């Protein structure tokens, strides 16, 4: 064998090995940060330069792996933790993070099966304050962003219904614990603004608020306390028109139909699958009365299909700049009357507004003056999910 061939092999060998080692380093980056980050991947290795979001995240996970006293969390747990952190940081009463178990319960509720005492709850707060806080980055009053916990739906036949809970009631206490609420804070504010206010009353109220704060439940924990489990009881105190009432309410499973005929009217809940049942029921009809009171949150992905069972298709509205349109609308005309009030919320409220503006539906009762937030469910590869507020739904006005 010739000398030249030998040195060729040696050079090839060295090059191949060096190339392999370098390749290893680069491939690792690609594996860890995902292919979509390809551009700018290598430049960001230099110290002092901008790291990409996922590289910063990886650096912190490496720090945990190297230093944390116990076994570091799994990639799945860290992913869920990160997303949960972001959703909670929004401070948005409509948006929520769900673990896989919570997601299963959420989906069951959206389909009409309720655990716990048999209610759906919503967090209600001063929306103008929320928007001010978000849009203007203004000095805002943190206490004013404290939501009230409101019953938005009571499943028929559920323990909650038997105990007398109604949509619109405000949950005041669970067991002996206060549910943080904006009411007393507003009271304090008004008293402070009133120059002639009695100082004793003022200090009493402020002391009561402090005492409440010490034992209070976080409004976001309350859903879990009242909306999970099929056994045991929960002692609930609620408020309606300034009157408080309390009862021990059993936990059990309650199933509610999406569509139910009640005399001349149809009680409609926007549960998953509502549109199919509604289509069957309205076949050949020329008029319908829909009862949308005490509607609960419902499933926003039903708004379109239900609308198409009731009226002509087309663009029915927009969320932010995204149009919401309905295909395969109803071809035969249908005279619609909607029964609504303050307890028409969630998906049902968006539907009602679209039907009024775009399909000429008549309204009996008064629609609430609140905004219709449009919520969508996003699932994660970990099996968890989150409900995200996509913004205000504004109905399209038919020319």
């Amino acid at each position: 064998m010739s000398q030249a061939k030998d040195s060729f092999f040696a050079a090839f060998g060295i090059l191949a090995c060096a190339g392999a080692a370098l390749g290893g380093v680069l491939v690792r980056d690609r594996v860890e940060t995902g292919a979509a980050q390809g551009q700018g991947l290598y430049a960001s290795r230099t110290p002092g330069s901008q790291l990409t979001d996922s590289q910063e995240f990886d650096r912190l996970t490496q720090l945990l792996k190297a230093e944390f006293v116990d076994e570091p969390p799994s990639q799945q747990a860290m992913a869920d933790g990160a997303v949960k952190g972001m959703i909670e940081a929004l401070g948005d009463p409509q948006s929520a993070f769900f673990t896989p178990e919570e997601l299963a319960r959420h989906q069951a509720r959206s389909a009409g099966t309720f655990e716990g005492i048999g209610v759906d709850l919503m967090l209600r707060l001063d929306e103008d304050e929320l928007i001010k806080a978000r849009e203007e980055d203004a000095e805002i009053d943190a206490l004013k962003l404290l939501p009230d916990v409101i019953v938005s739906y009571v499943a028929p036949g559920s323990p909650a219904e038997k105990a007398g809970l109604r949509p619109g009631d405000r949950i005041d206490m669970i067991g002996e614990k206060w549910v943080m609420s904006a009411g007393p804070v507003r009271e304090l504010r008004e008293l402070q603004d009133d120059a002639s206010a009695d100082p004793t009353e003022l200090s009493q109220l402020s002391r009561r608020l402090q005492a409440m704060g010490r034992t209070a439940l976080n409004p976001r924990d309350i859903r879990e306390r009242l909306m999970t489990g099929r056994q045991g009881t929960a002692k609930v105190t609620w408020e309606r028109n300034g009157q408080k009432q309390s009862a021990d309410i059993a936990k059990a499973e309650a199933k509610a139909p999406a569509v139910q005929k009640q005399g001349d009217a149809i009680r409609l809940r926007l549960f998953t699958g509502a549109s199919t049942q509604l289509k069957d029921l309205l076949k050949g009809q020329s008029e319908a009365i829909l009862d949308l009171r005490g509607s609960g949150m419902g499933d926003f992905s039903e708004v379109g299909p239900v609308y198409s069972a009731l009226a002509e298709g087309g663009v029915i509205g927009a969320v932010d700049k995204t149009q919401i349109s309905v295909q395969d609308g109803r071809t035969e005309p249908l005279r619609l009357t909607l029964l609504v009030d303050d307890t028409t919320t969630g998906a049902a409220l968006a539907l009602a507004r679209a039907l009024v503006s775009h399909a000429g539906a008549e309204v009996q009762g008064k629609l609430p003056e609140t905004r219709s937030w449009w919520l969508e469910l996003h699932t994660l590869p970990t099996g968890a999910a989150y409900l995200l507020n996509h913004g205000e739904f504004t109905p399209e006005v038919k020319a």
Partner: protein
Amino acid sequence: MKSALRLTVTLVMAAVLFSVGFSLRDLRLGKAPDMQAFSALVGGEPGLRASVVFRDELAKIEQNYGLKADREDLRSAAFNGMFSSTGDPYTVFMPAQVAESFTLETRGDFVGIGARLADDPLGARIVTVFKGSPASGAGLKPGDIISEVDKQVLAGMTVEDIVDLIKGEEGSQVSLGITREGAAEPLKRRITRQTVIVPTAEGRFLEEQGVGYISLSGFSETTPAQLKQALVDALPSGKGAKGVVIDLRDNPGGLLDSAVDMLGLFLDDKPVVFTKGKGLNETYRSPKGQAVNTPVVVLINEGSASASEIFAGALQEHKRARLVGEHTYGKASVQTAHSVLDGALAKVTIARYYLPSGANISRKQTDDGEYISGGIKPDIEVGLPTDSTALLGEPGKDPQLDAAIKALKG
């Protein structure tokens, strides 16, 4: 034949070096190669990576969320959320803004008016006024409520935000509106900001009872020196003091090294705490040749945590002091703070600590944070009346202090 062999050797070498390169990141940190990364490489199907989920969802939230969301806030919240997936409440990510005040706290000085504040619906309630501080010069008193800063009404604001308003450049002025019980009108005060050393150890001699009293409110870098001075103040010569009460109630802790240094004033070269963690198994001994032999009683409660528990626990186990009050919090872990990403801090629990006897005092609590077990038990258990008539640190109005004085004299 020979060249085929060489080729094989070269290929094997290349494969080995590829693996070394691939794992370089782990090897440099002194760890075994990350098998998950390997399987992601070999399997073709990449394993679930938290950073990728984070990146994708951050983009989705930014794009879809209907109101304005601050990208920096979302990132910090994600990092902190990832840290909290450890299940350890002390492993946290602090964005730069929060990190700044944390650093000030451990350093023990800042520019301000020199008062410790607590939440109040009307603004911020003054808990302590530091000796010799601008606040004390302006006649502010504990119990006063700061309800206005530079004409801004504070009702409903958090104490952190209020503190931010009050702090400022050294020598600049801030005007405060003070609501004081019994005063018809809010008082107005103009105060010049100065560098304030946060007093974390203050001593005085209780003439009538004939004992010294030291309140320890933290364990910062400056606390060991302050404690030496406090001992002098609490035990004036020629007064025949029968001992000293050290008040650790509601002391949330601080620096481990400060606690160990301070124990040297009472324990001569004794093991006081040991830590166990990744590469951090260490026994700490109190310094030599500084100890005094004055009798000591230590006041503790559920607000005494971390370095406070090391301090009280070591004195109790070496029978150097009796503990009076209620059980302590039960925080038995040590954190280090890493500076990361433009001024942010990553605080990570790196070790647990154990008292010299080996006792682990970790807290167990309900989901609501209510105490089940853990912490250090007092030798003499004394509670406080719940109607908040007690005035901490005032003999005759503080049943726990009274019991401590009795223990010293008895």
